[in-house]
Structures are given as C-alpha cells and as structure tokens.
C-alpha cells in the first residue's frame, strides 16, 4: 500500500461530481450551506445556534432539530419521486430519449440510483426522523418527566442520525456513484462482483451510523418510559401515544441489532473478502433476504405504530370523549408488535420455501389485519355520539381511514401466496406500501404536527390552509397511487425505466405523474401554511395558557411553549386522561411550592463523537485508512472522556424556577 492510498484511499479527481443531476445536487447543497452561513453571520447567530440548539440536551430542542432535518430530506426524497415518475412517463419505447439517455431522460443506471436513494431517504431519514422528533417532543411531557433517562445519549442519537443524513448525501460532494441496488441493497447485487464502486459503501455507512443512532434512541426511550413516569402513572394509565411509542421503541431495540449485523456481514464481504452472500465459496444469498426482512418488516411497524397512537389522541380529544376500549387498543398495539416478527417471509414467497412455509407466513400476515382493524373500529366508536370538532388534525385521521384501509386491504390480498406470485415485485406492491406508509404513518405525523404545534410554539397553525393542504394531499394521493394498482394488475413491474409502448401503460403513468404534481402542490401549501402561521402568530396565539384543544393528557398541563425543565413540580396522576380529570375536579392550575431542580448540562460531546464517526464513515467508504483510524480513535476517546465526566448536571435554584414560571404564566 502506498502513502497516497493510505491517506486518500479510492478518492480521485475523476470521481468528483460531473454529471448534470449530481451537479444539480451539489449546487443545491453549496447554495444552502453558503446561504445558511451568510444568514447566521449577518444576524450574529452562530453562538446562539451552538449554545441553544446544537449542544442542547433538551428533548424539545432535539425534537425540533429532528423534524427540521427530516423535512429537508422529505423535499429531497420528493424530488427523487418526481424524477422517477417523469422518467416512467417518458420511458415508453416509442419516444426518443434525450440528455444522452436511451429512453426518457435518465439512463438506467441513474434511474436505479435515484429509486434506491428515494426509498432509503423516505424510510430512514424522513419517516424515522419525523417520528423521533415527535416522540422526543411529546413523550417526556406526556409521562410527566423533566427529561429523558439519558439526555446526552439523546443528543448523540440525533447527531448520529444527522451524520447518516450527511453520509447518504455525500456523493453530491465527493462523487462516485450511489448504490443502484434498491433500498435494501440486496445481495448478491450489492457484492463487490456487481458493485465494485463506492455506491454501496455510502449506503452501508449511512445506514450503519444512523442505525446506531436509532438504536441508542430506542434504548433511551424504553428506559425513559419504563422508569421515569410521574407518580401514579401506572402502565395502564399511560396516554396512547406513549404506549405506541413504547411499542415502537421495543421493536427498535429488537430489530436494529439485526440490521446492524446484516450490514456488518455485507461489510465483511465487501471489505475483507468473506463469503456470506457471495455467489462463490458457499455464500448464501437468500440468507441476506431473510436477515434484512427480519429487520425490514418490523421496521414498517416501527414507522406506523406511533401514528396509531397519534390518531388515538386526536380522535379522543376532538370528539370530547375518552378513547373507546383503551385496554383493547393497548392489546392491539402489543399484538401488532409481536406479530410483526412472524411475517417477514411474505416479502419473498417466490423464494421457493415451499407451500407449508408460505402458508404459515401468509396466515400470520392475515392475522395482523385483526388488531389493525380493531383499532380502526375503536376510533370509529370513539367518534360515535361524540361532539366532533372538525379541525384539521381530525381531517388527517379521516384521510387515514380511507387510504390506510384501502392499502391494508391490498396487503391482505397479497398475503395470499398464489396472488402474491402474480403481483410480486409489481407496481401493485409499490402502490400498497405507499398507501399504508404515506396514508397511515405520514398522515399521522402531519396530524400530530398540527395537533402539538401550538404546544411548542405558543400559536396554532393556520386552519384554512391546513384544510386546503389536506384536501390537496388526499386528491393527489389517490390520483397518484390508484393508477399504480391498476398498472400492477396489468403486469407492470416496479423499477422500470422503460417499457414497450404497446403495453398501453403510458396514460396511467401520466395520470400518476399528474397526481404527484398535485402532491407537490400540497407540500407547497403546507410550507405556505407554516410561513403564514409564523407571520400571523399574534392572531393565532394560544390564549388558553397552554391548552388550546381542551386536551386530555399531561402535556397540556404545562405552558406553551413549556419551560426547558417541562414541569416545575411533577404532577401526580390519579387515572387515565390525567389532565382532563384534573380539570373536571378543579385541581388543575393550583399554586405550588417550587424547589431546586437538578438538570442536565448542555454538551458538545454528541457532536464531536458523531463528527468523528462521520469522518470514519466517509473514510471507510473510500478505503482511506488513515482518516478512518483518526475517526475511530477520536470517537472512542471522546466517548471515554464523556463517560468519566461526573459533572454533567447543574442545579436550577427554586427562586429562578419561580421567576420563569411567573413570566410564562403571565404571558
């Protein structure tokens, strides 16, 4: 090994971005970075950003940062979707290709890189990001805790997630090609034999790093929810969102080790020449499929179960009733959590495992419909004879009932192995998981965002624009995905960059493209809604002292926005819907005696560790030995320094608490 290789590895000038679509991304990144730097310098906000946000251990701030990053990734993933679908419209064989492509405007290889990135970004960095953001914001407040069990690990988890975001976008900066393997990098396609470049390595390190962050976050939330609840809050008195977050995080700590090891085995194959999934020397490719879906299937429940909790909160709040069948909702969430481990094989019925195995997994898959359907029935019964307030969060709920049930039905259809053999890897499948993940998980996230927005800002989102956004979303959604169901039945497989014009698919692809343009408009309206709400924040101000929706659960007991310590005095809980009960019994808003609080200090160690791990990831991608050693050594050293720092907390005196409380309550 020569010195240049030791320092720079595979990195060369020729690899740097030079194609039009990567240069576009590079340009966007550079403009964004420069713009941000100018903004911060002009308004002298660097120090503020560092002290108040980047080094914060406050879950509310970390939650906001998660949501902000996830939102930017949402725009990027959405742009990928637009590119995929416009290629599919232009990719009919009777149309000439342009921009150097044989069909449409993207070469087959570009197209594959784009759908790979689209899938990874939407799952790992958008939905997971939004989810961790909302859980960070809401769960500590709902259980009456001042902070998480391990505030520093929360900060570290976020920064690892952010390092993952940077790593997956790194090929815009350092070049090379992104993986063209599909979002799960299935072997043997992802092996060196077929992907000798750095594309799969970007994928490996991005997911390994962000997965580590997710795992740390999962452990943190499980311990927080199990150990830090307010006095009196037994498990069966926890709000539904806390319950579903617990279930989701339980899944995280069970499945992310599997993902970490699966990626590690692929790493061994690519870096050290082992033979786990290779075509030669006895490698077993189907083992990769089994392992990755043993993680992958529960993962979709990680995404959707918290949204079920959000719907429960919203339905109960806006129909002015307690949730119908609370124990059965808890049981349903737990049932889905357990069943999700026994269905992974339905992703490859066509593997040839035999009729017995396929039947088992088919039946287990259908079982999942029972608890899921039960939840929907519970929500409908909650609405029954309730005084329903038609505000925008509940619109998203109604939207979910239509889209998610639709998608779920398609799922049950595909759980039948003979039917799956027909539609396996077709656009029918693509339509199915988009209707469930977008229509179930993402709609829930939008609902939760609207619902809890006033809690953390002190003002509501603009209501009319919210409803416009909803309707545009719903209409655009069906126009985009119903054609995909039909195309799937007509035999269109997924991941096609071109097809014979004689198939007659083009009009349906065009309809889908119209749909996604409507969705882009809907996202535009959402951005507009946010801007208008910020501009008109005085008009939209929450004048109720922190409880704009007449809420049921503890988070509405604090001021809006809540003080950084959440509760000056930890509330005592005497039943479900604790805050609603307190209001009914007139025990809310009673004066209290303040005392000294012990709170975690801010720390930059999370950024340092994640920064070194980021360096490690980039260096490993390019096989740059020197920098990977620096990254690894730096991360380990920082971790030990942090572990042996016994002064991570400080005391906030009672007088100070009183001052803050009086100021917040007066507002």
């Amino acid at each position, binding site marked *: 090994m020569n010195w240049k290789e030791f320092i720079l590895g595979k990195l060369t000038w020729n690899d740097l971005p030079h194609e039009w679509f990567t240069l576009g991304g590079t340009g966007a990144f550079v403009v964004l970075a420069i713009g941000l730097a100018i903004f911060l310098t002009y308004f002298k906000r660097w120090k503020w950003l560092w002290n108040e946000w980047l080094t914060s251990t406050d879950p509310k701030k970390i939650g906001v940062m998660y949501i902000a990053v996830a939102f930017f990734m949402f725009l990027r993933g959405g742009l990928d979707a637009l590119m995929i679908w416009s290629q599919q419209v232009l990719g009919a064989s009777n149309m000439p290709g342009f921009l150097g492509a044989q069909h449409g405007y993207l070469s087959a290889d570009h197209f594959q890189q784009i759908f790979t990135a689209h899938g990874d970004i939407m799952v790992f960095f958008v939905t997971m990001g939004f989810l961790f953001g909302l859980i960070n914001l809401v769960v500590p407040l709902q259980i009456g805790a001042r902070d998480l*069990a*391990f505030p520093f690990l929360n900060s570290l988890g976020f920064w690892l997630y952010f390092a993952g975001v940077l790593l997956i976008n790194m090929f815009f900066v350092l070049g090379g090609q992104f993986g063209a393997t599909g979002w799960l990098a299935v072997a043997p396609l992802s092996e060196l034999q077929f992907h000798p470049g750095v594309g799969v390595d970007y994928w490996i390190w991005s997911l390994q790093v962000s997965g580590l962050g997710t*795992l740390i976050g999962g*452990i*943190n939330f*499980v*311990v927080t929810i*199990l*150990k*830090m609840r307010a006095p009196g809050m037994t498990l069966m008195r926890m709000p539904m969102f806390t319950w579903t977050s617990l279930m989701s995080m339980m899944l995280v*700590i*069970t499945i*992310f*080790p*599997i993902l*970490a*090891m*699966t990626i590690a*085995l692929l790493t*061994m194959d690519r870096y*050290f*020449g*082992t*033979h*786990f999934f*290779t075509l*030669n*020397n*006895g*490698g*077993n490719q189907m*083992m990769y499929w089994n*392992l990755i879906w043993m993680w992958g299937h529960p993962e979709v429940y990680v995404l959707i179960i918290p949204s079920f909790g959000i719907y429960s909160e919203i339905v109960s709040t806006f129909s002015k009733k307690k949730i119908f069948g609370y124990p059965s909702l808890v049981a349903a969430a737990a049932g889905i959590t357990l069943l999700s481990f026994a269905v992974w094989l339905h992703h490859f019925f066509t593997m040839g495992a035999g009729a017995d195995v396929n039947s088992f997994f088919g039946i287990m898959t259908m079982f999942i419909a029972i608890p899921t359907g039960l939840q929907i029935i519970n929500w409908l019964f909650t609405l029954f004879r309730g005084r329903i307030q038609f505000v925008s969060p509940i619109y998203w709920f109604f939207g979910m009932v239509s889209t998610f049930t639709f998608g779920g039905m398609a799922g049950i259809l595909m759980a039948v192995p003979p039917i799956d053999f027909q539609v396996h890897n077709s656009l029918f499948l693509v339509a199915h998981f988009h209707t469930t993940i977008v229509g179930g998980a993402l709609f829930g996230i939008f609902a939760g965002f609207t619902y809890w927005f006033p809690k953390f800002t002190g003002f509501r989102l603009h209501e009319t624009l919210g409803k416009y956004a909803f309707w545009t979303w719903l209409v655009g959604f069906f126009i985009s995905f119903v054609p995909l169901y039909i195309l799937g039945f007509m035999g269109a497989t997924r991941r096609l960059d071109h097809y014979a014009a004689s198939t007659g698919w083009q009009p349906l692809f065009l309809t889908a493209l119209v749909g996604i343009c409507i969705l882009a408009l809907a996202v535009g309206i959402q951005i507009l809604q946010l801007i208008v709400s910020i501009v008109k924040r005085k008009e939209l101000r929450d004048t109720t002292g922190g409880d704009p929706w007449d809420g049921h659960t503890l988070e509405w*007991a604090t001021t809006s926005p809540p003080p950084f310590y959440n509760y000056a*005095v*930890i*509330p*005592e809980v005497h039943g479900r819907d604790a805050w609603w009960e*307190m209001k009914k019994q007139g*025990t*809310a*808003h*009673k004066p*209290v*005696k303040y*005392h*000294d609080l*012990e709170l975690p200090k801010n720390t930059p160690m999370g950024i340092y560790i994640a920064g070194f791990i980021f360096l490690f990831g980039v260096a490993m991608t390019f096989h740059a030995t020197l920098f990977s050693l620096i990254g690894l050594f730096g991360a*380990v050293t920082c971790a*030990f320094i942090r*572990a*042996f720092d*016994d002064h991570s907390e400080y005391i906030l005196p009672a007088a100070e608490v009183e001052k803050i409380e009086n100021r917040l309550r007066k507002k």
Partner: protein
Amino acid sequence: MTVKAATIPTKEQIEEVATDKTLFGFWVYLMTDLLMFAVLFATYSVLHGSIYNGPSSNEIFNLPFALTETMILLVSSFTSGLGTLAAHEKSRKFVLLWFGITFLLGLAFLGLELSEFSKLVAEGNSWHRSAFLSSFFTLVGTHGLHITTGLVWMLICMISVATKGVTKSMVRKLTLLSLFWHFLDIVWIFIFTIVYLMGAL
C-alpha cells in the same frame, strides 16, 4: 397538579435513581448486543455445512485448546465478581488486585484466540476460503472484539481508581463493567458449545 407540595428528592435519592436508570439501560443494551450475537449464531448454523472444498469444523478445532480458553474466561468472570464486591466495600487495593487479575486473564484469553486465528490463517484456512470459515471468524472475532473493548474499559477504570479512588460513580461503572464481562462469558459458553463442542464431535 395537586395542591400539596411535592416531596423534594434528596441527593441520595437522586443518586439512587441515576444508578437504577443506568443499570436498567445497560441491561437493555446487553440484550440488544445479545441479539447481534444471535444473528451471528444463526448465520454460523446456516453456513456450517458450506465448506466449499475447505476443511469442515471437525478437522480444524482443537477441543483441549478451546477448553483452556473457556476456563480462563470463567475464572476471569469470577475475579471480576470479586472486584465488584471490593468496589462496593470501597477498597481501592482489592479493586485494583481483582480487576488486575481479570485484566491479565482477559489478555491471556485474547492471546490464545489470536494464536488460534493465526494458526488457521497460516494453514491456508482463512476467512477467504469458505462461507463456513467466514462465519466462524466473524462470530468468534466479534466476541474477541468485545473482549478487547472490555479490556480497554477495564484499564481506564483501573487508572481512574488508582488516581481518584473508588468514587460513587466509579462503583457504578465497575458494576456495569462486571456485567459486561459476565455477559461476554455467557456468550462464550454458547460459542464453546455450538462452535467447538458441536463442531468437533
């Protein structure tokens, strides 16, 4: 919020809650680590027969050698337990003694493992050769990597004990370290049984 003023937690209570949380969190972490090993064990079982013209497990494993490794690790687990007891007694001398012995035993184990690996590689049976050998090296090597991490951790703890004495937070750290060490011992018992015993027979 109730009318009566909440009871103010004392310094001891805060410390106790912190220990409780940390211990529980560490247990949860250990379970996730166990799942990582579960994946490697499953991989090993699947690939056990995929020898692809290479040696099979009963041709390369040396049972007395593996038994020696096992015994060393078991004894080190016992001494790390004694070290934790000494930590609770706040005895700097005995903490250093017992963890010192544990450290040396761990080092001996690691040396034996590396000598086994280098012998296999020298005979041409490296992880390149077959899927079976890939999974063997990865499973046992991952355990070895954990042992190495534990040794570094132990060394830093011992330096801290030697300079600052056995503080309260150090008792907590040594308890976690000891848990980690016992955990590695349990994983090794499974490696000994599934890889060496079942493989050599």
